[in-house]
């Protein structure tokens, strides 16, 4: 019995290691000249299935293989930093601007030289020296229960601290990068003191101790635990298109409100998921080719329709769902600020005891 078992295991191990040697060879630079096979290595914090399909399509069209390493952005940045010159990474994709700013400050990126990208991606969604550029946009907005909240009452992020929302506000914990970026934008717009005041007011209005993810906040509205929640736009899209009927119900129970839209006001807080070109990229040209592909109209529309993110390419059309929420004014704060103020935001959260 055990003889067969270990025989089986042995074969299995051999199998896994063979698999690996093959990939070793194809990724080694020395012999790559003799092979037609070209490849790029991508470190990414995004793990959506849509991305996988898009990469597969790129591989098919160009014959370039994409090696994907998926992990949290901080871990990937640390990995690139340690690996230094011999790092296999060509590209770094994150889900917020802050981490890209961090990567640039650590000297891990280099300018992306592409006329197409310069023309296509709006300036404020990119690094000033194009060390990184945005790929998709997401807005952090308010959703509300239409029967309990009159949308007229909703105005700005600043107003969420007013007495009226006491015990009604739902939001996730401050461990989340999207909350940190929102906080950073408040600091940038209002100044540190006012921002602290604001955070204190928010904490005082919480319907419950922050827990769960963005989707859970919407479900909590349906369950009556609170009336308004702050979430990222695409999570609502995902709820509405979920395979779980309970989630669809939660998604349908709320309406979208874009804050700070008034005359002369700054607009709703947005962030990007973006890509940076690694300083020691071995396959720079192919890597830029992939970025251009990702910013192309076709792929941008895929991001919008399958992942409910707003496209950065102005030519790409938003999906019907995104359109149904209406156009909105975006905060024009340069995204670099979000990265620069990230730490201040976290420190502030800790000060006011925002869990």
């Amino acid at each position, binding site marked *: 019995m055990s003889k067969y078992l270990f025989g089986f295991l042995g074969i299995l191990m051999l199998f896994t290691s063979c698999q690996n040697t093959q990939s070793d060879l194809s990724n080694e*630079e020395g012999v790559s000249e003799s092979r037609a096979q070209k490849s790029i290595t991508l470190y990414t914090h995004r793990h959506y299935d849509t991305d996988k399909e898009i990469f597969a399509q790129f591989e098919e069209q160009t014959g370039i293989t994409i090696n994907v390493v998926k992990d949290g952005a901080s871990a990937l940045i640390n990995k690139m930093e340690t690996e230094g010159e011999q790092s296999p990474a060509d590209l770094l994709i994150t889900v917020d601007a802050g981490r890209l700013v961090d990567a640039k400050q650590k000297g891990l990126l280099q300018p992306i030289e592409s006329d197409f990208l310069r023309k296509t991606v709006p300036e404020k969604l990119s690094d000033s020296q194009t060390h990184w550029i945005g790929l998709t946009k997401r807005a952090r907005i308010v959703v509300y229960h239409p029967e309990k909240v009159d949308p007229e009452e909703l105005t700005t992020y600043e107003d969420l601290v007013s007495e009226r929302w006491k015990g009604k506000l739902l939001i996730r914990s401050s461990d989340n990068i999207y909350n940190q970026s929102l906080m950073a934008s408040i600091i940038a717009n209002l100044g540190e003191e006012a921002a602290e005041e604001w955070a204190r007011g928010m904490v005082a209005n919480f319907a419950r101790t922050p827990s769960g993810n963005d989707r859970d906040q919407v479900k909590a509205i349906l369950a009556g635990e609170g009336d308004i929640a702050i979430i990222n736009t695409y999570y609502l899209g995902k709820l509405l298109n979920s395979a779980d009927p309970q989630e669809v119900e939660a998604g349908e129970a709320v309406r979208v409100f874009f804050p700070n839209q008034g005359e002369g006001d700054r607009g709703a807080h947005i962030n990007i998921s973006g890509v940076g070109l690694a300083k020691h990229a071995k396959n720079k040209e192919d890597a830029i080719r992939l970025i251009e592909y990702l910013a192309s109209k076709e792929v941008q529309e895929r991001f919008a329709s399958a992942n409910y993110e707003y496209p950065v390419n102005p030519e790409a059309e938003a999906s019907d769902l995104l359109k149904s929420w209406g156009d909105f004014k975006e905060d024009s704060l340069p995204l670099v600020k979000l990265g620069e103020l990230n730490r201040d935001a976290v420190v502030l959260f800790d000060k006011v005891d925002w869990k």
Partner: protein
Amino acid sequence: MMQQFAHQLRSLLRDADRWLVYASILSLLIGLPFLAIGLGALEGVGEMWQHVLRHLLPGYLLNSLLLIVGTSLLTLFIGVSSAWVVSSYEFRFRQTAELLLFLPLAIPSYIMAYAYTGIFDNGGTWIALGKSLGLNLPKIDLMNPLGLIWVLGLSLFPYVYVSARVAFQNLSSSLQESAYLLGASHRSYFRTIALPLASPAVIGGLFLVIMEVLNDYGAAKYYGVQTFTTGIFRTWNFLNDLQSAIYLAVILVALVFVLGWLERLRRGRRSYALTGRREQGREQRRALPKGGKRLLCLFVILLPILAGLVLPLAQLTYWALMTIGDQWSKALLWTSLQSFGLASTVAVLALICSFCLIYYSRWSRSRLTRVYPRLVSIGYVMPGAIIGIGIIGALQWLVDFFASGLDWKIGAYVYNSLFILLYAYLFRFLAVAYGPIEAENIRIGRQLAESSSLLGKKPLSTLFNIDIPLLTQSALSAFALVFIDAMKELPLTLLLKPYDVQTLSMTAYQYADDELVQQAGLPALLLISVVGLLLALLKNRLLSRE
């Protein structure tokens, strides 16, 4: 002072033998990442340290302690009681129950956390079921420290269960008979004989639980409970201060060492070795529970199986069925096979290393050999992501050395090799394999090996003819534990895996992390099936008495 030091040095030199050298080399090799982390910590704290001390540390420490105490009590209660019932009572489906009690371990705790909120939180199955029956059931709020204790306790109690069960099973029947002949009741036999004799193993299991609790990130983060480990991540990722994060990790390790030291102090010089029991031990008699006891036994067995296995599995199955249309693919099967291959390879490696360490320390006169395994077991305490940093750091020395000294650019090989991943796993999981084997080793004592040696057998021959056969059962448990742990492993796999390797736990995690928990259902179920498959394969060996 000087004199004492000189004395110690002398005794060290006196006791130095080849076993010490072997043990040192092995431990050094395995402990290299820790060295990298330790050297990193020597650079001092980062700039955010004051902030961490003031705002984070006290709260995190308190929460972590609460979790440790709560989860320990829960796992001890569930683990020991269920192990006792399956070892000392006879009932229908006993053997099935024995295996099922193992299985909750296959559910990663963050998946357990998601499954439980999927059932009991807003929009959960529990509420939906109630609605379809016309009932208005309230949600059960689990997203707090108590809920986290419940979830962690259920996914971790098998550690205690396994160690306790092996220990109870190996109590000789002669011992039991003597106790009964002397008029002991079943209860007092448990209290005064079985439990104390099983305690080194139980505490070994409990240690694994505590380390897993300290190491948990996913479940705590989702439930919004701030612990030491979430604090380490916050310091690293968001305060952008890796240096302080490493410092926190080192404090964590120190805490665990203090705990370990206290336990050794408690155990003191007592010996748990029993001589000659296996030769005369017949199959232990199992009583048939009657009356009220029967209900109690049923409860003790069913509670963990239902709460730890059936409920979460039902929710996962529900999710899997919901998403099977777009999730099912050949690639997923291939992923399962890879997970299986990786985990079994690691488990075999961990067993080999554990045997080596035990073997060396058996024959070496030096006490140092007994310290090494403890040092090596640090890998299990540290948050995986910090180990990842250590391993990359250690690797980088190698890569830099080749690059600067020989102008060989080996980076491309190193960063994408299965070898590195296996090494990382080994560093991480050696303690899991070593624990149960060492506990059994302590119980057996060294008399048999010494007799063998006196009879002229060489150490190696003694190892293969005496030690390994005696330790087979605990080795199989160890194999299963490492296998399961490696199947679930996340941070190291994410950071160090070769590009084309994909594991089930990664697949499940990435969906859950993207708030697509329904899609995580199928990979999580496959993961549990693979573990179930292994347990079924090993079943006879795991259950039979030597």
